[in-house]
């Protein structure tokens, strides 16, 4: 299933993210996927997220397809040069992967291999350009591919609450021009800011999946405010997390906040992308509370 078909049908698209394990036992990750079977349209698999080395995104996507799920294959530019990126994208097509999410990726200095060589041979914009070339039957040097060319639905990312916002908008426009078909956003906690962003990108007429990260604790909210680019958790939400410590610890406060945000943001956009960061078991309840 190509995500573009769901957008065309006017469906409010739901995706959720899973992060492969730091090890070769993938069973737990597949169990996580089972928790949301039938409740989401696609499962997004991160690519060595936060520059922490893990089980691969491509292999996880393949295993998800075997189990009957629709994965979104995340591809970052940090770890592979243009040869490896094109090769993995051809492999993805060969394995039946239909949806891609193409992004720059965090710098290796942020992860558990800070001495690694930062590759960034392509960037998120040129990677989109290259995938379009592959879809047209050649590699990026114009060499012909054998047989039917691959076909994908190409997704990209944007940070709608970033300050300043202009740099994000400039790059978003460039990604659309190169062939991005939908956008997944950084975590949103400020509906007003998101509404302003949606207003600015309205004329581009491109589907947006709003990003939702479940707030697990006060510490997490404060950490994001201090460290995570483009994310601001307002004081009112931090107060709500502080109010009932037991409820927050059980995850219920985060679940309620996420559901409320989705309800509020739904009329503004074309779908939601959940980033539960290990709390996939909470996703069904969030969706239920959000009446999805």
């Amino acid at each position, binding site marked *: 299933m190509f995500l573009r078909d769901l957008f065309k049908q006017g469906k409010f698209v739901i995706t959720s993210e899973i992060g492969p394990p730091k090890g070769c036992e993938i069973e737990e990750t597949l169990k996580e996927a089972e928790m949301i079977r039938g409740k989401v349209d696609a499962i997004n698999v991160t690519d060595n997220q936060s520059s922490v080395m893990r089980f691969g995104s491509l292999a996880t996507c393949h295993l998800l397809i075997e189990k009957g799920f629709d994965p979104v294959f995340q591809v970052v530019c940090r770890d592979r040069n243009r040869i490896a990126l094109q090769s993995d994208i051809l492999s993805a097509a060969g394995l039946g992967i239909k949806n891609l999410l193409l992004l720059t990726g965090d*710098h290796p200095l942020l992860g558990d291999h800070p001495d690694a060589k930062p590759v960034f041979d392509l960037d998120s914009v040129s990677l989109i350009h290259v995938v379009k070339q592959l879809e047209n039957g050649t590699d990026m040097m114009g060499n012909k591919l054998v047989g039917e060319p691959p076909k994908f639905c190409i997704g990209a990312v944007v940070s709608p609450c970033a300050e300043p916002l202009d740099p994000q908008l400039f790059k978003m426009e460039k990604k659309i021009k190169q062939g991005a078909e939908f956008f997944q956003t950084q975590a949103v906690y400020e509906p007003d800011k998101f509404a302003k962003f949606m207003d600015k990108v309205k004329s581009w007429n491109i589907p947006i999946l709003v990003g939702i990260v479940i707030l697990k604790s006060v510490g997490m909210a404060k950490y994001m405010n201090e460290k995570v680019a483009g994310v601001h958790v307002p004081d009112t939400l931090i107060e709500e997390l502080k109010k009932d410590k037991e409820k927050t610890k059980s995850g219920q406060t985060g679940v309620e906040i996420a559901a409320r945000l989705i309800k509020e943001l739904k009329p503004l956009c074309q779908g939601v992308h959940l980033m539960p960061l290990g709390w996939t078991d909470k996703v069904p309840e969030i969706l239920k509370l959000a009446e999805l």
Partner: protein
Amino acid sequence: MLITEIKPKEEFDIVLKDNLIIIICKGCKEIYLPVVDINNLINELKEKKIKFDTINVDYLCNHEYTKLRTINLKEKIDNADNILVFSCGVGVQVVSSYINKHVVAGCNTLYIHGFQGLTPFIINCEQCGQCFLNYTGGLCPITACSKSLLNGPCGGAKNGKCEIDPEKECGWEKIIDRLQKKNQIELLQIYQNPRKYSLK
């Protein structure tokens, strides 16, 4: 030793019109500048009766020195519409950093092995051989961005600072700021092909 070569003319022919200033950096002592190509271009401009001035300097890479040297030429520079610079990548970035005009690089700086010259300023040139300064307001994305991105910023900057170092400014936010000041923000929409590492 530094080696530069003249850029393909289509990269700077937009500024080859009246009210142009051409700045030529004659060195570091050991620079190789494409003098014949530059002279041919100057002769061509004369034949076409285009109004322009040339300024010959040395050590354009030295920010303070260049500023002092160009104080006398302030009026001339203020009256110009465009500035075409024949120098290494550092020289162009120095001029672009303090003259709020359309500053255009006329050269690519090629990579050679060993230590190169003296650049007594934080501006850096990696000698990539395919200078991008004409698209980025005269700020090098290869050296100013931690990921050397060519098509705009990643989403990692927080409060204008790079994700790898809270002290380091986001190179792309500076580039965008510069392009906005120079009224050239549309340049950002030009798609940049991946670098040619075969040039190194």
